[in-house]
């Protein structure tokens, strides 16, 4: 049982490290701001979930787990808010997504 939890936690941690890394690579490689935000949200939601989940399994039932859950909840609740603020601020400043060209002219605005 404990061995199983141990293995599961290492798997989660490794996958978390990989997804954090993928998000970082994506943020560097993507062509424009909005596509980069998609890559960043991989690290923010997926990476955080996996890494903190893996640590939670290591911690077991303790005060540390409650704190980790609080941190995870806080990250998951705030990251869409700050992405949204970033997107709306960028739109207001006139940064157009490359996707906009593909819409019919009447639909934009």
């Amino acid at each position, binding site marked *: 049982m404990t061995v199983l939890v141990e293995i599961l936690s290492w798997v989660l941690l490794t996958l978390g490290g990989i997804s954090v890394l993928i998000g970082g*690579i994506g943020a560097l490689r993507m062509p424009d701001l909005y596509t980069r935000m998609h890559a960043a949200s991989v690290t923010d939601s*997926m990476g955080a979930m996996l890494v903190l989940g893996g640590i939670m399994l290591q911690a077991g039932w303790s005060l540390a787990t409650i704190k980790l859950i609080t941190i995870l909840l806080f990250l998951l609740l705030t990251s869409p808010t700050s992405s949204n603020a970033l997107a709306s601020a960028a739109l207001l400043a006139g940064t157009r997504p*490359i996707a906009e060209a593909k819409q019919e002219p009447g639909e934009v605005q």
Partner: protein
Amino acid sequence: MSAESSAADSKGAGGNTARPAYLRMLLLALVLMATWLLWSGFFKPLLIGLGVLSCALTLYLVRRMDFFTREAFTLHYDFRLLRFWVWLGREIVLSSLQVARVVLRRRIEVEPILVDINAGNLSTVDQVLLGNSITLTPGTLTLDMHEGRLRVHALTAEGAAALEEGEMQRRVAALGRR
């Protein structure tokens, strides 16, 4: 916010139980104090006194922000929200894999699309919940929310199609129903 609009907001948010103001204040005070005790872990009179002081200050500030006199929304923290989170977690995993495939290709070739979603049938709180859930899943991003219409930036055509199919919207709507 006028009384009518807040009543309309709370209608879809899952039946407002309309607790009296002093009860909500007491509830908030209890939650704050429990949080303080959890994070401090010390039970010396000085530290507990400081905690009581900070809770009182927070309550005062929140009161000044008219949190108690205004009709606030109430979410239902029952098992349905938990089930929604589990479903959302699965969606996050699946769409992360999609984004990872795009990122790790040898040549980056993305065709992002803008999609408009009509969420006029949801209450304001549920619209926010939907918009944030869309942003939280990698590959889709809420750009703008205006009069019940969400403008969504999707990285892949599959992600856009899944959104337009509307499963997430149905689930959020089911969450708001009593």
